[in-house]
């Protein structure tokens, strides 16, 4: 791989990302409908979450279907600190991120030795255990959840009664941060090791210890960003309960955009989220009211169709094809 063309490709990607972010930032000038703004916020949030998930599961190859745990930790830390101790959500989100990162490292230490499905099921089981504990933790509201009374707009408390724009820009910022972190990692020593490990089992042996440490770090970074997303979601919805922030469904929803867009690619999560989330929302809103399950059928068929139609992800295939062409 020639250094200069590699560098210019990376620079082009960064420029593209900044342009896309700038273009998205202008969207509210055109889109005034609250429902669509809401959909945009969710899309950006899932782009950020899926990007975070992609760091651990896509690049590092540790498939996690338990990221709902970190999302929930962020949501709960933010609202508990605010409602119980009056800590502003900005600090709460950071605290949630730190807690989630610590938990991710603690979970990763024993679990990174597990291979394949054993690891995936371990992540599911740990997240489910977290859900059960939250459902039974009375001080944290247990099943009753926590509600933030929203009384007027406030940047300090990060709550806005009607306007979606502050949430929109926060979600955009988070998605951009997650993208840049991924962009940095791709070209770092970690990224290099991970690729080496994927391509060559012997390299994995010789790199054993450093790779293990880098995986722990990846888990912590991924969990931190996911938890900040969780804290954001809690502020955005202003009510959380264990089922609505920690259920297994969330873990899947975070992984889905990256898989559809292209797992382990820079642009996969964002592209996947931009397609998937509007579809999810629109099918529920316009086909769900009948009670006949049409929304589920349409959504399920679409997921199946995309998974089969573009098994390497929407941006995955062309990138690989380009690489192959270059190699030839």
């Amino acid at each position, binding site marked *: 791989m020639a250094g200069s063309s590699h560098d210019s490709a990376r620079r082009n990607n960064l420029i593209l990302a900044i342009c896309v972010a700038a273009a998205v930032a202008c969207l509210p000038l055109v889109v005034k409908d609250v429902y669509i703004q809401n959909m945009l916020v969710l899309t950006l949030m899932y782009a950020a979450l899926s990007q975070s998930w992609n760091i651990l599961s896509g690049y590092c190859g540790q498939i996690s279907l338990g990221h709902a745990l970190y999302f929930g930790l962020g949501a709960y830390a933010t609202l508990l600190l605010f409602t119980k101790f009056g800590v502003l959500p900005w600090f709460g989100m950071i605290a949630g991120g730190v807690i989630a990162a610590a938990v991710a490292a603690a979970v990763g230490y024993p679990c990174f030795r597990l291979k394949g499905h054993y690891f995936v099921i371990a992540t599911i089981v740990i997240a489910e255990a977290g859900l059960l504990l939250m459902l039974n933790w009375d001080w944290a509201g247990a099943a009753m959840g926590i509600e933030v009374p929203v009384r007027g707009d406030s940047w300090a408390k990060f709550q806005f009664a009607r306007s979606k724009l502050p949430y929109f820009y926060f979600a955009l910022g988070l998605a951009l941060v997650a993208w840049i972190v991924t962009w940095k990692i791709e070209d770092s020593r970690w990224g290099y090791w991970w690729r080496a490990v994927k391509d060559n089992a012997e390299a994995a042996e010789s790199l054993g210890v450093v790779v293990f440490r880098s995986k722990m770090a990846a888990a912590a970074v991924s969990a931190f960003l996911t938890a900040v997303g969780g804290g954001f*979601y809690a502020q955005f919805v202003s009510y959380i309960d264990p089922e609505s922030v920690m259920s297994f469904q969330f873990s899947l929803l975070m992984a889905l955009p990256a898989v559809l867009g292209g797992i382990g690619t820079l642009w996969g999560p964002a592209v996947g989220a*931009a397609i998937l989330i*509007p579809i999810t929302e629109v099918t529920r*809103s316009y086909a769900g*009211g009948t009670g006949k399950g049409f929304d589920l059928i349409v959504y399920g068929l679409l997921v199946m169709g995309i998974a089969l139609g573009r098994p390497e992800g929407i941006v995955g295939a062309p990138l690989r094809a380009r690489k192959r062409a270059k190699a030839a």
Partner: protein
Amino acid sequence: MKLNRREALAGAAALAASLGASGAYAADEIVVGAVFPMSGSTAQTGVDARNAIETALAIVNAKTDLDLPLAKDAGLTGLGGNKIKVVYADHQGDPQKGRAEAERLITQDKVTAIIGCYHSSVSATVSQTCERYAVPFMCADSSSPSLNKRGLKFFFRASAHDEMFSAAMFDLMDMLRKQGQKIETLALFHEDTIFGTDSANVQTKLAAARGYKIVADVKYRANSPSLTSEVQQLKSGNADVLMPSSYTTDGILLVRTMAELGYKPKAIIAQAAGFSEKALYDAVGDHLEGAITRGSFSLDLATKRPMVGKVNDLFKKTAGKDLNDNTSREFTAMITLADAINRAASTDGEKIRAALAATDISGDKTIMPWKRIKFDETGQNNDCDPVLLQYVGKKFVTIFPESGAIAKPLWPMKG
């Protein structure tokens, strides 16, 4: 070719906008939003709610001889005979989706009010959203006592909350005690989501206040594949009264497991939910002869108030089942809301709110066994005494309060 994010978003936005525009209504229609679970594990409730609301609309929008508000004329007389149309949205039991749907209904469909939402958690976010947009929220069937205590101006609940429901259950036990029955120990059996937790919290408080001893307090995971260990704990507690707070699924499994482990409780007083659903009695009714459940509604009322039977027949025609605890509340909430919109003679949120606050419908003009519908300053109706029903001979009979009772309680149950 890479599909870029902007194009995808723009496409989606155009799609949503076109779909939104298709929701335009005839100018003379008054649009109300209904947010219920229409898919997922509680979809049945949402589908039933839709039937109940449509039954109410049929009565409000057409000329009937029923003695209900608005029944005698076609449409709303206060708004020149305009008809009400309800648009339904699915929240799948998720507070975030409920909130998003409420926002969509308010901003796109321009609904004048919202009715919902079954899950207390979703009612919490939807009512919050309604408050922000100054649109009245009619809480049809969520019974968490905290909902009306959040200082919301646009929240209204015509039916009882869990504190009132549980109080009625303890009133019955107090009465039976006075009549010489030995009722000292209770077993609570409740699921771990908001409904069961809420119900058990209230029951624990009431038990302490009124001198009952809780010998088993079994909180279980909702939709567990097995309830064997849980039933064993109930069995070893062998309380005088078993008080389950369970949805239909867990209720069916509970009763089956009790039968299989040879546990016959002396009496059951249930917090409705699953125990007021036909599906549960179809499945395990044999074991429930004499079981008692609290409820908001009783078909027995039809003997005193024939209109109740007629409404039930109308509902049964579309839904294929009798009105029950939930559907009767949804029906009544819709009628109450329609009455307020009619009196407000406007589709303005503030005016409808004022009309709702001034609501005063006497009990005999409803299908419920209530004294009246009149909201206090928190939006709660306090004159909606619950009833207690006993399952005897394959149907429910009202046994409490004594004013509405048509039979003496069968105690202990036969099982």
